[in-house]
């Protein structure tokens, strides 16, 4: 039962409500399907002015309330992170849902199929958290995605920050769905920095296979510092053979594991093609 609904316009007021156990609601797209039997009071966090995208020299700060539609159209985010974020945001669900889903909600919802967390992980994003009576804190997205860690509990996500660099970054992003508006059955997101002919700072994130997206560390190690060639990619992909998969009814674990391999290879290929062209 929803006992009360607050629409504060000041962050402090929202934090006070959250501190006493109220539940933050952004896009509200999962509010009514989550069949909670307990009485809750809601804090609408969409009127706090947290819907700005601010581009600095070395980072872009994406307000918690930025919708995926807004993010998908954010031409002002430069470079590789901008291109990747726009591509990922545009791929999620359907138009009206993208108009509602917020960046913070997509992170805090922690649905295994959520499309933004893998991308944010590949971009080394940090999550900015606000809590009543505490200084704002920043948490690496990787830490937030660890099981049981929800640094925003008792408070709220205020923004997600993605670092920007002058280095030559490239990405590849692949997502497998049965229909365009489907949940992802598997995703693969690759980011890397080009150092002459060598691959540096390689991130390969697999999403939708387990409860949380994760970096394929073994595969990354096979690529890090290497020149891009088919053998290196084969070696990296070979490490994905034993990826753990959380079972669900949408497709078999074996199939989703295969998909992750194919998508990873394709994402790597895209990143490489981009690197070659740029």
């Amino acid at each position: 039962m929803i006992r009360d609904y607050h629409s504060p316009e000041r962050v402090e007021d929202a934090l006070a409500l959250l501190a006493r156990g109220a539940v933050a609601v952004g896009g509200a797209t999962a509010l009514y399907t989550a069949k909670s039997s307990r009485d809750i009071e809601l804090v609408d966090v969409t009127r706090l002015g947290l819907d700005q995208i601010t581009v600095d020299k070395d980072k872009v700060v994406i307000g918690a309330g930025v919708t995926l539609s807004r993010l998908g159209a954010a031409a002002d985010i430069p470079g590789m992170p901008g291109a990747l974020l726009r591509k990922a945001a545009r791929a999620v669900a359907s138009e009206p849902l993208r108009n509602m889903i917020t960046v913070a909600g997509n992170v805090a919802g922690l649905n295994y199929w959520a499309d933004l967390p893998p991308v944010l992980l590949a971009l080394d994003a940090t999550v900015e958290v606000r809590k009543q009576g505490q200084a704002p804190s920043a948490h690496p997205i990787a830490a937030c995605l660890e099981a049981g860690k929800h640094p925003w509990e008792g408070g709220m996500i205020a923004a997600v920050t993605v670092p920007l660099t002058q280095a030559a970054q490239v990405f590849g992003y692949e997502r497998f769905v049965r229909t365009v508006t489907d949940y992802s059955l598997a995703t693969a997101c690759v980011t890397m920095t080009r150092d002459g002919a060598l691959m540096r700072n390689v991130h390969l994130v697999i999403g939708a296979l387990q409860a949380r997206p994760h970096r394929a560390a073994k595969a990354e190690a096979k690529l890090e510092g290497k020149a891009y060639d088919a053998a290196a990619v084969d070696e990296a992909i070979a490490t994905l053979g034993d990826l753990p998969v959380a079972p669900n009814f949408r497709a078999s674990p074996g199939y989703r594991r295969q998909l992750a391999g194919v998508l990873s290879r394709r994402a790597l290929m895209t990143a490489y093609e981009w690197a070659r062209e740029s």
Partner: protein
Amino acid sequence: MRFNAKINGLKREIECAPGATLLEVLRLMGYKSVKQGCDREGTCGACTVLLDGTPILSCITPAPRVAGREVTTVEALGDPSRPHPIQAAFVNAGAVQCGYCTPGMLLSTKALLDRNKKPTDEQIATALSGNLCRCTGYVKIVEAVRNAAAALTEEQKP
């Protein structure tokens, strides 16, 4: 809860339970063009309305969220004596079969054409991707949107 919102250009006072959805409230107020087709999941699009001009799904929108804002339903577009060009385009293209998804389709179309005068077929398909239709196979709907875009452009010529 009690709050004010503009609905189809009229200032209205709304009273509802804090957990009420916008869909429930609008239908109780008599805006029955707004339809329900899924279980408060936002997966069918029949409940689409415009919130400050942006298509959203009223079945998963908490009603209090619209306080102080403007909601548009298809009732605001036109009536049979003076249909909106988008309504006329849907009728003339044969894009209306059972009609249950039509109000939502029209509003998604309006939001699209308000910001993009000459959308490509791909942009049309993307803009309507949240509005399921089981009758038409979408062909005539996409055609109607194309025709509506042309009609609106024509209308705006001096």
